[in-house]
């Protein structure tokens, strides 16, 4: 498989296996006192990813998709809950803090916001030289030589003009160049770049991306490029991994993914990019809603509540029913007040479950409303996932077909986690 190429191959720079990074939610003082579990955020949930030397791999997804956490895990900046991160022959997940610091000579990070990444009270020379100092270069003259070389490499020349400048004296593009200089000054092998151009003006983005390509060429770097912007990923990356709610939903060579996007999420991300061409319009049938709460991800496929291609086996559940009823009231405003008294409160549906009990105004009435909703939009895929609707008290219980979260499977030249593609493995 292209994304897990010969697992034992010696030429793999990084090999991430079944990596999970979970964060425990801190509840209130009382619940902590009583040892109540306030839940966990599965920021990264069972991800496999490998990097060959010299490769540029993009991690693409919306905020909350886990792409930044995955990137930080590659530097050991967040602890792995499960799984392994092999950098050549060392497992980062097992290393002590001390050893991790040594690893960061090899793996460096470029942060999104150059204003936040640079200390306002350090000059350019101090900021870039600090990395050398931390890693044990004692001689000031050597440090200066290293800084000068790094600054020249990122195009901040004449260097004398910049050495004594403070971040406030620099433009956004220049600051990002300083951040890049600091990242390359230790001569790393792998650079994790977390949205390196998204804070910059359109007119300089291309320039910084070009610089990064030049650096990669000159210094034999390998990149992990984290972004929400598919357009730059398309230009910049050899392979991309599309992430959604902590999982990789599609991964493969950039060309193949952009020529034939398979996962509905990938398709949606691509369709949503507005082109500066007034003849090309963004389609109107884009996914509804937003990336859900990672503490309580949707059952089944995490993308199904927003998916324009969802089918019966996607894992429909109680919260989807709530959304559907609310959308119905958006269209049928006149019916809202009357139907609301029959349906009653919907808040309890927020607890994820494959069986949902709703209604307080009589089973028959609730059934009638649900039937009406179904007639309104018979193509709504939620209905195909309904196993049964049974009377329960003065309402009904809707049972949904349970479904697992789809695993990555091969489809053409890529791997995709979607039930629309038959699982050949």
């Amino acid at each position, binding site marked *: 498989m292209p994304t897990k190429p010969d697992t034992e191959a010696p030429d793999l720079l990084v090999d991430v296996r079944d990596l999970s990074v979970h964060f425990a939610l801190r509840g209130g003082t009382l619940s902590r006192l009583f040892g109540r579990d306030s839940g966990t955020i599965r920021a990264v949930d069972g991800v496999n990813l490998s990097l060959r030397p010299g490769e540029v791999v993009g991690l693409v997804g919306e905020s909350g998709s886990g792409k930044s956490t995955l990137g930080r895990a590659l530097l050991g900046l967040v602890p792995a809950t499960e799984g392994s991160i092999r950098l050549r022959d060392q497992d980062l997940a097992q290393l002590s803090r001390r050893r991790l610091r040594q690893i960061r000579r090899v793996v460096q990070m470029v942060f999104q916001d150059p204003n936040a990444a640079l200390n306002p009270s350090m000059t350019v020379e101090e900021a870039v030289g600090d990395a050398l100092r931390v890693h044990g270069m004692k001689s000031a003259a050597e440090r200066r030589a290293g800084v000068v070389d790094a600054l020249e490499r990122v195009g901040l020349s004449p260097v004398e003009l910049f050495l004594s400048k403070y971040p406030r004296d620099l433009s956004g593009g220049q600051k990002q160049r300083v951040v890049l200089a600091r990242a390359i000054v230790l001569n790393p092998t792998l650079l994790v770049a977390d949205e390196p151009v998204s804070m910059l003006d359109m007119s300089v983005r291309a320039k910084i991306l070009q610089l990064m390509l030049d650096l990669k060429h000159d210094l034999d770097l390998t990149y992990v490029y984290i972004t929400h*912007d598919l357009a730059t990923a398309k230009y910049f990356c050899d392979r991309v991994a599309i992430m959604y709610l902590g999982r990789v939903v599609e991964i493969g060579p950039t060309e193949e993914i952009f020529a034939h996007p398979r996962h509905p999420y990938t398709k949606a991300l691509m369709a949503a*990019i507005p082109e500066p061409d007034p003849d090309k319009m963004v389609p109107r049938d884009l996914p509804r809603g937003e990336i859900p709460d990672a503490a309580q991800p949707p059952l089944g496929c995490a993308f199904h509540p927003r998916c324009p291609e969802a089918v019966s086996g996607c894992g429909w559940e109680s919260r989807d029913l709530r959304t559907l009823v609310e959308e119905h009231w958006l269209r049928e405003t006149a019916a809202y007040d009357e139907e609301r008294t029959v349906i009653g409160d919907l808040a309890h549906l927020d607890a994820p479950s494959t069986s949902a009990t709703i209604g307080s105004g009589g089973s028959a009435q609730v059934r009638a409303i649900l039937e009406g909703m179904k007639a309104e939009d018979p193509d709504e895929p939620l209905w195909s996932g309904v196993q049964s609707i049974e009377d329960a008290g003065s309402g009904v219980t809707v049972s949904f077909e349970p479904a697992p979260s789809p695993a990555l499977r091969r489809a053409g030249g890529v791997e995709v986690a979607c039930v629309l593609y038959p699982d050949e493995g």
Partner: protein
Amino acid sequence: MTMDLSDETVAAASAREPVISARDVRVWYGTTRGAIRAVDGVSFDLAPGETLGLVGESGCGKSTLGRGLMGLLPEGAKRDGEVLFRGRDIFTLSRKASYQLRGRELGMIFQEPLTRLNPLMRISQHFEETIKQHEHGLSKDEIRDRALEVLRLMGIPPTRYKSYPHEFSGGMRQRLMIALALVLRPAFVVADEPTTALDVLVEAQIVQILNDLRRNFQTSLLLITHNVGIVAEACDRVAVMYAGRIVEQGTVAEVFKHPQHPYTRELLRSTISLTTTGLNFIPGAPPDLVDPPDGCRFHPRCPSAMNVCASKNPVDIERPGGGRVECWLVGPEDQIPPGGKQPLKQEELTVADEA
């Protein structure tokens, strides 16, 4: 959509008249180094129900222009020029009169919705406050009906009317802000980078809502953005701003297909989209607006600069294909001095001048 009678009469009478007519608008900030001329002689018209996109790099004066029109400039800023709103110059109104106009007739949508909503107030209270401020004597039920109607058009279900801002996601909050700006049915709305803080799919949803504004509300919109893709998506006309001036304006189709000003062309070329096959960028950075370059302000960065560009201010002329443009490449020929069309010898721009 029902409008009350007075609005309808006004709308009918002014159907052809621009809602906003700005002439030679200037805004400057006083600093110890001298005045920053953030907006320096801007003129445009906005027809009823029309969306005008205002694009340019950071620091070109887009946001200042938007706030200047609203009268929301910080202390120490001065504005000048004439902005006719339905025939009345809003720059000369008294504080009280402009206070009454804002919200009722002139709406504003900001970038960060969470900082504009009161975390201690329910959504219903936000609407009650907004509506009561400008329309007295409405009952709670009437307010609720009006609010729910606007919320419905924004895709927010009626079950959420009593919720607090923190119970909404980022995209929902931006919808709330738009609903709050529109519930009073203002004739003119300024939206300042309304989608910049949002994810790409949510951004597309909001852009579609803005796109539907003209159909649902007959509102004229000034959409400030740095994203030319959004302009292509949501705007009828576009004004390209550089260093405090509008250098080119016209219909989106015309300007984006046949950009006349080199800045417009370079801005479009530097945008990275799915159809991008090469990386292009504009060298240098926008100038210091305390002391902008002589002649055309873009000439130090312009790949097509001529001798005349460095010495003589370009003239605002009719654009071939409609609209306005300020560039000596387009003309007028008879005002270019002899030898003025020779390519300009430019100093090379280095990273030291980069944006």
